[in-house]
């Protein structure tokens, strides 16, 4: 009774790295046919990026590639060759969406200007993902996840509340990349929905710097309303200390003491006499003295482990939660009950757990799937395109596929 959302939607994926592949992974996992075009021999750059099992470099065993390319078909093609580009044009005729992550101007260099693309396929949606977008003074600048996060404004406010002028540290992992992949997907699906309202061909220009800045949400406007640039999540802005992590016996707890039951804190720490103190009843007292608040609860926390603290606090409607490592996710009873980790089979990695869906759509399932081997679908795909066995061999020996 459940069905794939993008049944019959064809996507040509000319991206590599993280942002672009995450965008097309979402399409693939909701049932689109994604043809991933990779460089012959080397493939996508993330194939060379770890983690590898036992840290042994192997193009077919990258964990990052596995995660980002589930449910895609891999074909190899040298798009810089003349034959390569002719083949690409043939594929484009039946493509609904082209997603690409070349530097601005890259498609034109290949001979695929907007005009030519439109001539090949007037209904095509072209989604271009780059660090700074196709226009503007920074368009030729280089970036990686860290430097684009800095420019997008998400590095500056990354300091502990009580040490707001220390060296900022960016969010862990590749948040700029994933955010961009996600927003690119949303814009592209919207274009698919809205295409009926537009007779013109559609192109989408996504800039990673802007995607990063959009994750700052309303905080950007603190400047235009008050002249304020936050260095941290200020204790003093929301009327209570906002979430931060405090130590306990076996790790850390993250908490937001001001919302959802602060009056219960005295009961949590077995000091009911405190319930009438200003410090508990008036959030503005706490915000003026975050260290005083810490001094109140940290001694109690240090005698208990994070699971027990969380359980007791939650009983009292206090928003205390444990800080978990990635390893601890695998023992998390909630994730287990919700079957968050799926198991997939990969020809080289064997049986492997796979995190996921980012959201549960009950009527249209998420396909856990696996990533393809390099050029795994060459034969099937090129035969489907009308090439004979012999011609495919020829393209192969010429280094085109």
């Amino acid at each position: 009774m459940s069905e794939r959302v993008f049944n019959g939607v064809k996507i040509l994926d000319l991206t590599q790295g993280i942002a672009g592949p995450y965008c097309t992974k979402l399409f693939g996992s909701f049932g689109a046919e994604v043809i991933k075009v990779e460089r012959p021999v080397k493939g996508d750059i993330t194939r060379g990026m770890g983690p590898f099992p036992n840290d042994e470099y192997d193009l077919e065993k990258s964990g990052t590639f596995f995660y980002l390319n589930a449910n895609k078909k891999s074909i190899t093609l040298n798009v810089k060759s003349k034959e390569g580009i002719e083949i690409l044009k043939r594929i484009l005729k039946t493509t609904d969406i082209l997603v690409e992550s070349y530097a601005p101007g890259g498609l034109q260099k290949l001979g695929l200007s907007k005009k030519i693309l439109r001539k090949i396929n007037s209904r095509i949606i072209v989604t271009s993902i780059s660090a700074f977008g196709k226009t503007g003074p920074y368009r030729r600048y280089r970036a990686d996840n860290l430097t684009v996060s800095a420019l997008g404004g998400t590095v500056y406010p990354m300091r502990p509340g009580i040490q707001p002028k220390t060296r900022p540290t960016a969010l862990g992992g590749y948040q700029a990349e994933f955010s961009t992949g996600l927003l690119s997907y949303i814009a592209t699906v919207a274009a698919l929905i809205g295409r009926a309202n537009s007779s013109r061909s559609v192109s989408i220009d996504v800039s990673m710097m802007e995607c990063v800045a959009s994750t700052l949400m309303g905080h950007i406007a603190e400047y235009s309303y008050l002249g304020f640039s936050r260095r941290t999540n200020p204790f003093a802005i929301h009327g209570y200390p906002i979430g931060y992590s405090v130590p306990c016996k076996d790790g850390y707890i993250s908490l937001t003491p001001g919302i959802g039951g602060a009056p219960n804190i005295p009961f949590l720490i077995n000091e009911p006499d405190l319930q009438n103190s200003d410090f508990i009843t008036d959030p503005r007292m706490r915000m003026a003295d975050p260290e005083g608040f810490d001094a109140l609860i940290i001694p109690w926390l240090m005698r208990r482990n994070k699971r027990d603290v969380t359980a007791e606090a939650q009983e009292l409607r206090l928003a205390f939660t444990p800080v978990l490592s990635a390893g601890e996710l695998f023992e998390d009873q909630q994730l287990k009950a919700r079957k968050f980790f799926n198991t997939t089979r990969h020809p080289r990695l064997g049986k492997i757990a796979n995190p996921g869906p980012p959201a549960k759509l009950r009527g249209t399932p998420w396909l856990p799937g696996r990533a393809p081997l390099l050029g795994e679908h060459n034969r099937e795909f090129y035969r489907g395109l009308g090439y004979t066995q012999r011609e495919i061999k020829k393209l192969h020996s010429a280094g085109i596929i």
Partner: protein
Amino acid sequence: MAYKLLEGIRIIDLTMVFAGPVATKILAELGAEVIKIESWQRPDVFTRANVYPENNPGTDPWNRGCLFHSLNAGKRAISLNMAAEEGRDIFKQLLKVSNAVIENYSPRVMTNWGLDYGRIKKINPRIIMVSVSGLGHDGPLKDYYMYVPGMEGMSGLTHNTGNPDEPPLLSGFAYGDWVTGANAAMALMTALFHQKITGKGQYVDVSGREATICHLGDIVLDCILNKRDRKRMGNRHPGYAPHGCYRCKGDDEWVAIAIETDSQWKRFVREIHEPEALRDQAFASRQGRLARQTELDCLIEQWTTRRNKFEVMEALQRLRIPAGPALNMKEINLNPHLMKRGFFQCVNHGEGIGNRPIPSQIPAKLRGFRKFALRRAPHFGEDNEYVFCSLLGMSKQDLEHLEQEKVISRAPEFPPGRPTRVDLLEKQQAGCIDPDYLTELRKHFGVGIGKA
């Protein structure tokens, strides 16, 4: 810039604070009609009550908060008391003329109101319902009280953020809420496409914590493949060095630099002449640099400390090396690249507030669709008449009756408007205050800034 892609799609929005409103702001910027529901007892206080223009709460503070303006521009707002049966009956009428409903209450609320998906579906079989929560709508921990620190902390993100020898660091800007909201928009958009093709609705369950884990794929996979439980590593990268955030000339000024290849390194040392120690042959290879990162970072910082952060960016970008200053909110608002790209839209928020730049929540430039100017964020209950009369066919008398019965209202119950404690912000050094911000903004966004 906003685009008309989702014309004719109507979303009922029961969400508050950050996560849910991010989701519906994305839909509103893409042309959907979003109707935000609040009640007089439960307005969206958190965002309505914070950071007023020129620190002045005015007489209607609930209509003046900057976070609310940014996150709710382009939406409509009605007041409706869902705790009253009459309010729920009106809500059911609204369900009949809408494509989707999105909510972020704790899991029991909608069920207690008799508005769980099973019953909503009977009213409108085509409807999509999106529930946004911390840990999801089933499982043993579904009733956990949690906000953004829980989404980040329970996902592995916090454990992997900050310096290795220091406590884990939560984001300074509610990033986990953004991830939750943007993933809810992703799911809703997907379900809307499915609805358009098949005419079918469905139920969508978004767990903010799970969405955040999905943005940590590489870290989680290291655990799966190698049982290696990674920990925060500051600004470093597992595969290349130098990779860090370095102090520049001035007070609290920083630049991020990432050198990915040996040839970039070669160009780097050719450009910077001192300190001499950087020319050490051991640094010529990626492995050599990865092995001595602490030393390397000190040497590079000796060079950056004497330079302006923008000069460093320009010097290194000329060498095709990724580098960028850590921009603060002022520099984001006034950034020439973002401005040129149309990242901000100047929206007039009315009397006493005037124009202010509103950042885009879906910053994609689309060609082939009609653009439109985003409406300012709605005042409390501003669209009561449009929704109840124009959409649902009620009369003016009906509205008066509903107001008497306190089912709808023109003003919320609201805590006294209080200015931000700028003195505390300064004392705690929680940020920098620019007293000339209106003048600065007017230079770029015109004289209408701050004037109605």
